[in-house]
């Protein structure tokens, strides 16, 4: 009897063990299955390179180039804000902060990393957008710049904590060896610690990019929502995630529009997958490089 119980639970755990894989496959299958019909309507290439997104016109245009470019533009801006600040803050925490300061700041940043994206979006709408509108004399403050800054601020704690992890994995003996050879703190940092943590830091930035591309609420609320090819940071844009979130509710089930939104999701899915795989590969190199030292 007991033996059967053992076997039953063994197989139960095996099944549960595969749950993450199963859901990943299910998501992939569903997204692509629902996306396929749109490529009968608009060929794949025309879909991603089309310059016009008029899903409710007659006949509709399903070109998502403006949406892809908007996603990249906003993400680029976010990374420009978040990467230096996140890395700088992490370096401050690991290199300069005293023990007491660190004991306070580290959990604080961890907690702030949990602020929901909708709250950032809300802040962007009520504070940053009016500010930029006045500062740059814009017709609306809801634009790529506001979205980038909001998204950037949101990504700082995320990037910071990953960079900190990467830095703390660098063995202490590397630092000691460098100091013992007469290098000062700065030289030790720039010549030994940062190069050793380099791929870990890159991983952090890549994951930050991936998350920014996939982030929905912030850009939905502050990017402005104009589905045109973006020409500047001061103009309203409509990233892929915002398009899906804004239009799904009104797209009739099974319509071309519905499938087109799944098509966007498929593109988004593949993009983030590429960045995640890239991050994983870089991270692997990081571990190998320090491998014999861990």
């Amino acid at each position: 009897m007991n033996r059967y119980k053992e076997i039953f639970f063994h197989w139960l755990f095996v099944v549960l063990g595969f749950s993450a894989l199963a859901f990943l496959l299910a998501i992939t299958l569903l997204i692509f299955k629902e996306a396929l019909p749109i490529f009968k309507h608009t060929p794949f290439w025309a879909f991603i390179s089309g310059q016009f997104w008029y899903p409710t016109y007659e006949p509709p245009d399903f070109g998502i180039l403006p949406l892809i470019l908007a996603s990249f533009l906003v993400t680029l801006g976010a990374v420009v804000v978040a990467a230096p600040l996140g890395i700088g803050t992490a370096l401050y925490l690991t290199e300069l902060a005293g023990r007491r300061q660190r004991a306070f700041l580290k959990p604080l940043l961890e907690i702030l990393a949990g602020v929901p994206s909708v709250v950032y979006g809300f802040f962007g709408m009520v504070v940053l957008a009016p500010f930029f509108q006045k500062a740059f004399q814009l017709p609306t403050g809801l634009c790529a710049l506001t979205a980038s800054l909001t998204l950037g601020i949101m990504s700082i704690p995320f990037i910071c904590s990953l960079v900190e992890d990467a830095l703390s994995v660098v063995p202490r003996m590397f630092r000691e060896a460098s100091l013992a050879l007469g290098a000062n703190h700065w030289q030790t940092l720039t010549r030994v610690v940062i190069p050793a943590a380099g791929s870990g830091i890159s991983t952090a930035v890549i994951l930050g990019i991936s998350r920014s591309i996939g982030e929905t609420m912030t850009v939905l609320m502050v990017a402005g929502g104009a589905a045109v090819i973006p020409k500047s940071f001061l103009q309203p844009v409509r990233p892929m995630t915002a398009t899906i979130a804004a239009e799904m509710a009104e797209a009739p089930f099974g319509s071309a529009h519905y499938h087109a939104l799944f098509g966007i999701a498929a593109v988004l899915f593949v993009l983030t997958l590429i960045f995640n795989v890239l991050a994983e590969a870089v991270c692997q190199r990081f571990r190998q490089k320090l491998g014999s030292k861990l």
Partner: protein
Amino acid sequence: MENKPSVRLQTIQVSFFYGEKKVLHNISLDIYQNSVTAIIGPSGCGKSTFIRLLNRMNDLIPGSRLQGTIMLDGQDIYQPQVNVVELRRKVGMVFQKPNPFPKSIFENVAYGPVVKGTRDRLLLQNIVEQSLRKSALWEEVKDRLYENALTLSGGQQQRLCIARCLAVEPEVILFDEPCASLDPIATQRIEELITELKKEYTIVIVTHNMQQAARVSDYTAFFWLGELVEFGRTEKIFTVPENKRTEEYLAGKFG
């Protein structure tokens, strides 16, 4: 060697604290020019802590505190105006576990001169070759200078670390259990090397291996529970120790 060598490093009534805990008690010790001084004792006796005071590596430990004076050539190295970087260039250190940087062999050895500001490629090549020759590694690595240092064996890595230390042109070299993670053959090579280096440098070596201390050192200091129990010429300590504890330790009764 018998005619009164000059004192290079001197610790006077040195005590050291981790927070409230006193880990070294009033250590007074002289380290002589062109000699090897071995520091022995059971693990946890403070020998590594002590040697790390000599080039101020313990500065990195938060909440630690030093009492007493440590003099290098008659100058207190813990005075605020002392440049720690300069001090560490004069007093080099080789660590317990080989710790080459994840860079090429060349870059590892050239690291010290480069951070000092040497940029001349030819000069660097020269320094790297000389240092690797002195550490008896040149013949083994001369064809693979640009390979990652982590591809070397453990013993080779440790000799690389010694070369890296020599490239800074220190006057005193501190060895913190340099053979602790090496096999007997690699250990023997390092010991030969230390004996060779003695001609040019002043050497302090921490070891838990008594035979090693007997083989390589001129002077031996025996530490026990953070105190210096006995210090003197190695032959004397190993044959006619004055202190009963030293005798017991050497006889293998504890530790």
